[in-house]
């Protein structure tokens, strides 16, 4: 009899039955996938960022395809926490009762906005296993630069949010200055880090001489991000003791395995969900097969198991 590898991991207090999570913004509020796959097979899902008040997001075009990936400037369109909780809450509550943890992403333009969104989440979404603070979205034009792009800015948001709740709090990091900012976030009490958000990029239509998006820049997703994300996960895992959620270009179980070897406790599937709504469960199966091939009893033995 083949003894199954234990796939359960503890992501900063969120007990996941396996390491597969979904990347915020690529999995809607979960129920969009309900007829396309069995969402309850996943370890966790992370919902699209929501702010205290509704945000309209950016004008069209919001997406451009690039070689090996895509670029978006959705601009965190969201209905606000109250409408989110009312519309999607019941389904998410049910999902969490089936053993798939729900992590809700928190958006804001300022420390105050993060805090008030988080307060609303804590009140209206008791079923949430934890919250991910998106200090890194490259689309928010808060003076042009996201709060999360300096250790001070990211630390400020984390400090303020930490006062709001004892539930697990994670931070979705921008792909910049990882070691420094990761240490600042750990110092302010983050329970884990999601590394990385989409990478700011630019694509120009050379015939019209205009950006392919309604904004000059957008956030890059997909396989093109993956080797950069693996490096950043490794940097983060070496910099801090809190667990890491690896995000960026996971299309296969091997991509997920690279994150785990580099030091990630869990792994989020992003753009792959959009290309193939069943990608996350396929990746889970591939990851499990890889763990078995490595002759371990527990996937936790493989976290950070890169030899170098």
């Amino acid at each position, binding site marked *: 009899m083949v003894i199954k590898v234990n796939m359960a991991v503890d992501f900063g207090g969120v007990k996941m039955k396996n390491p597969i999570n979904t990347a915020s913004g690529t999995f809607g509020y979960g129920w969009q996938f*309900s007829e*396309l796959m069995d969402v309850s097979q996943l370890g966790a899902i992370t919902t699209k960022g929501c702010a205290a008040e509704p945000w309209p997001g950016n004008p*069209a075009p919001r997406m451009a*395809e690039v*070689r*090996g990936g895509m670029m*978006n400037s959705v601009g965190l369109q969201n209905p606000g926490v109250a409408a989110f909780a009312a519309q*999607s809450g019941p389904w998410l509550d049910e999902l969490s009762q089936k053993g798939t943890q729900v992590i809700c992403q928190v958006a804001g333009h300022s420390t105050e906005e993060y805090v008030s969104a988080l307060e609303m989440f804590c009140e209206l979404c008791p079923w949430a296993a934890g919250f991910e603070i998106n200090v890194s979205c490259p689309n928010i034009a808060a003076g042009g630069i996201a709060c999360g792009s300096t250790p001070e800015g990211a630390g400020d948001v984390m400090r303020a949010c930490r006062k709001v709740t004892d539930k697990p709090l994670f931070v979705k990091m921008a792909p910049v200055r990882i070691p420094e900012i990761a240490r600042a976030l750990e110092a302010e009490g983050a329970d884990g880090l999601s590394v990385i958000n989409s990478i700011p990029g630019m694509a120009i239509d050379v015939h019209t001489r205009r950006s392919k998006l309604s904004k000059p820049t957008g956030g890059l997703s*997909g396989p093109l991000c993956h080797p950069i994300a693996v490096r950043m996960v490794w940097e983060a895992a070496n910099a801090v003791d809190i667990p890491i959620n690896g995000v960026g270009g996971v299309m296969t179980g091997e991509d997920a395995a690279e994150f785990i070897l580099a030091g990630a406790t869990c792994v989020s599937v992003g753009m792959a969900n959009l290309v193939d*709504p069943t990608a996350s469960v396929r990746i889970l199966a591939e990851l499990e097969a890889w763990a078995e091939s490595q002759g371990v009893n527990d996937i936790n033995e493989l976290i950070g198991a890169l030899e170098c």
Partner: protein
Amino acid sequence: MPTPSPARLHDFTVVSNEKIADGVFSLVISAPRLAGSLKPGQFVNLAVPGNAMSLLRIPLSFASADADKGTVEIWYAVVGEGTERLSQMQPGSTSTLLGPGGHGWTVPEGCKKALLVGGGIGVPPVLCLARDLASSGIAFDVCVGAASADSMVGVEEFNAAAAGKVLVATDDGSAGYHGFCTDPAAELLAAGGYDYVATCGPSPMMKKVAASAADAGAFCEASLERMMSCGFGACATCAVETVDGMKGACMCGPVFDASKVVAW
């Protein structure tokens, strides 16, 4: 929770894939479960193999669906790398699609006479509607526009679908009216008698048609294009600005009440 998209993952096989006009191809695919569930104005999101650097699917409307044969006919213009690759898919080759996506035309109860306006590769969803109107016994006239006679599609099919008038316009005057099809459409609308207008084509065209329809007091629907990533409501890349806020084209569209569209 809100209703998830009706789209499901389907395998499909190419039955035929042939040029029907300048730069325009007709693709017939076999996808039995899909064919019976498509409604005019909906779309499918096709994975076209052959370029590992290009990962997203291609959203396409359909021109007709045959539930009995289990086939769907799609007309597409070759405009870039992805549609070029699609044009190279041979009969017998297979891939997957997500569909049906979004919701289609909502012809008002008791509609007496409709005007359909299709420009360029916007013809297929309108043609599909024409056949539906015909089978429901609703009268309709059609305006079709194209860059030139060579690239025009649908005229025969509209006639075969028992259209009333079929007015043709070309940008270069090589067939029918010399100019945009918005002009004959505006004339017809000004003459009155239509209680429903359906349009698909370039945005400036649809915007004009919507304005003429509004002037004439006719309810107008337009099928909008947006850059789509998922096609089933998960990513919010396909937003259309409406008077009720941002609406995803893949869920709340691609067919929109034209009077509510703010940004075309």
